[in-house]
């Protein structure tokens, strides 16, 4: 394999396998040869010779192709060599015309069981000189066609690759930016929490200290998420619980919450700040604006190699006017964008109405246990 690749260096940026390229060339050669055979038959009017002409033509053509592809794969594929070898190759191709023709018709004669051409009198004046000329033209045409086709393909491929590279870089930058975006602490949330703390210090210092713990945990999780790419499900749940703990103090009796994390999933790895925006959405869009408030349930489960995280609220739900805003809201769009960048089609985020009211956000992604 090693020697093979050394001998036939792949054209830079060309991923098409060698066999495939040869097959393409053979196909093209066969078409050209059949056309030439038909042309010759039409010109000389001896239609009964069509089969013979085709055999000869194909033999000449395939011999020519062996030479052409041989030169191409050894000398012309490498751009450095190509520069030095292009002119000698063209000269060789021109010189090849009689050789290809003679060996082609010899091969054809053997196959058809005809007498071999007279080597001493080659090329004779009974059409052989004309045929050599035709072979020469055909080889030149083939060479131009094949080399040019490869050149166009190579340019296309290079362009696609450059684009793909640019896209990868863009995606990586986007991913980092999206993570930052999701990890932003809403000033409104911070100031309201501080206002609550300020009040609690006077009314109930013990609860104030508890709330401060939640706040510290929430801030630590959110701030570290801007640096870390991935985290564990246990950490994500801690951050979610800290946030819900803060909100429960603020909203009082209006908010109840449950977080269900099976022990075996505690160490599952997932991208940082993926769960948090969903929990915050459930509060900000679902329960905070609802007069009676309600319950949020965060639950993780694993099935068939997938990690599924559900955030279910009993809030205002997706009503007609909100559906568009919610389904394409910054939080959801950003999360979907991140999932797409990280997992492609292997991850998804769906939002559906929960029964009897509220929203069920379901996040599925490949289960990765450390």
């Amino acid at each position, binding site marked *: 394999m090693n020697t093979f690749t050394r001998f036939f260096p792949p054209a830079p940026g060309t991923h098409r396998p060698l066999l495939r390229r040869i097959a393409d060339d053979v196909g093209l050669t066969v078409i050209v040869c059949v056309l030439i055979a038909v042309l010759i038959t039409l010109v000389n009017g001896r239609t009964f010779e069509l089969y013979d002409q085709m055999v000869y033509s194909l033999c000449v053509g395939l011999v020519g192709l062996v030479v052409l592809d041989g030169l191409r794969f050894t000398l012309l594929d490498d751009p450095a060599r190509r520069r030095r070898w292009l002119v000698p190759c063209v000269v060789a191709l021109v010189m090849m015309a009689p050789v290809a023709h003679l060996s082609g018709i010899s091969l054809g004669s053997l196959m058809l069981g005809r007498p071999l051409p007279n080597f001493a009198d080659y090329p004779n004046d009974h059409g052989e000189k004309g045929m050599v000329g035709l072979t020469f033209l055909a080889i030149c045409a083939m060479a131009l066609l094949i080399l040019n086709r490869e050149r166009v393909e190579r340019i296309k491929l290079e362009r696609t690759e450059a684009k793909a590279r640019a896209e990868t870089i863009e995606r990586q930058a986007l991913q980092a930016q999206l993570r930052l975006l999701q990890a932003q602490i809403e*000033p*409104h949330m*911070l*100031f*309201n929490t*501080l*206002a*609550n*703390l*300020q*009040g*609690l210090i*006077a*009314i109930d210092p013990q609860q104030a200290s508890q709330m401060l713990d939640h706040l510290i945990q929430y801030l630590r999780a959110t701030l570290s998420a801007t640096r870390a790419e991935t985290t564990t499900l246990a950490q994500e749940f801690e951050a979610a619980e800290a946030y819900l703990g803060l909100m429960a*103090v*603020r*909203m*009082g*009796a*209006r908010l109840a919450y449950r977080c269900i994390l099976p022990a075996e999933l505690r160490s599952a790895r997932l991208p940082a700040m993926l769960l948090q925006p969903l929990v915050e959405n459930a509060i900000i869009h679902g329960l*905070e*604006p*609802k*007069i009676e*408030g309600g319950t949020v349930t965060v639950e993780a489960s694993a099935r068939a190699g997938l990690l599924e995280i559900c955030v279910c609220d009993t809030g205002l739900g997706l*009503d*007609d*006017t909100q559906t568009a805003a919610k389904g394409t809201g910054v939080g959801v769009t950003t999360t979907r964008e991140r999932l797409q960048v990280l997992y492609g089609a292997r991850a998804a985020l769906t939002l559906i109405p929960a029964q009897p009211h509220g929203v069920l956000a379901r996040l599925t992604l490949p289960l990765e246990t450390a």
Partner: protein
Amino acid sequence: MSMTTPATVRALIAEDEPILAATLAATLRRLWPELEIAGTAPNGVAAVQQTLELQPDVLFLDIKMPGQTGLEAAQELAERWEGARPFPHIVFVTAYDDYAVQAFEQAAVDYVMKPVSDTRLARTVERLQALTLRDAPADDGLAQLVEQMRALLPAAAAPAERLTVIRAAVGNIIRMIPVQEVLYFQALDKYVNVASSDGDALIRLSLKDLLPQLDPDQFRQISRGAIVNMRHVTSASRDDAGKLTLHLRNRTDKLRVSPLFAHLFKQM
């Protein structure tokens, strides 16, 4: 409930977060011991109800509340206030980015920021004491609020594509009503009623979304719940209580104009 002498200044606190409501009440009690806290309302809807019921002199209105925002509550109060007592003095309470603080400053509205600092609240208390001690004219608070709310109302939303025909469902058929023929739009729960010379029809669109799609020269908002086609208004009349009502061409229905939009119908 203790008996209150007329001299007692009464306050209502509208705040959805219980600890913040309790904290504001405690701070007010410390800074203004004579003030009576008449109650606390936990959401924007209760805020309006309790204000109409208790008729306080001072209303602390949180901006971000469930039900409706503090601004919406103030607007509704301006429309529904019929009390014998003067309109309450409103102090808006806002967290960091609830609402552009500059907007409050421009509208000269009294506001305090959460977390509320004692010194800042003390200034508000001083101002309120001066206002409530003075024998203010009966509707001073309302007139002031109307002016302020007008400045606070968000500038007209970016003009959207203009509607030319309203497609409204009436039973199984969709009626096509040319916008020109619409007399008024009225908010009804989750729907908007489209009144035209050919009768009424419902559409599922909020007034807020509808307004930018209408020609502002022809269609004007006249209250939180209604947009009227000015070309079909024949007259505006004021009743004894000072409430403004619109009369429409060829129709018997009358439309109430919110004090916030009364200036549209002043004589030239």
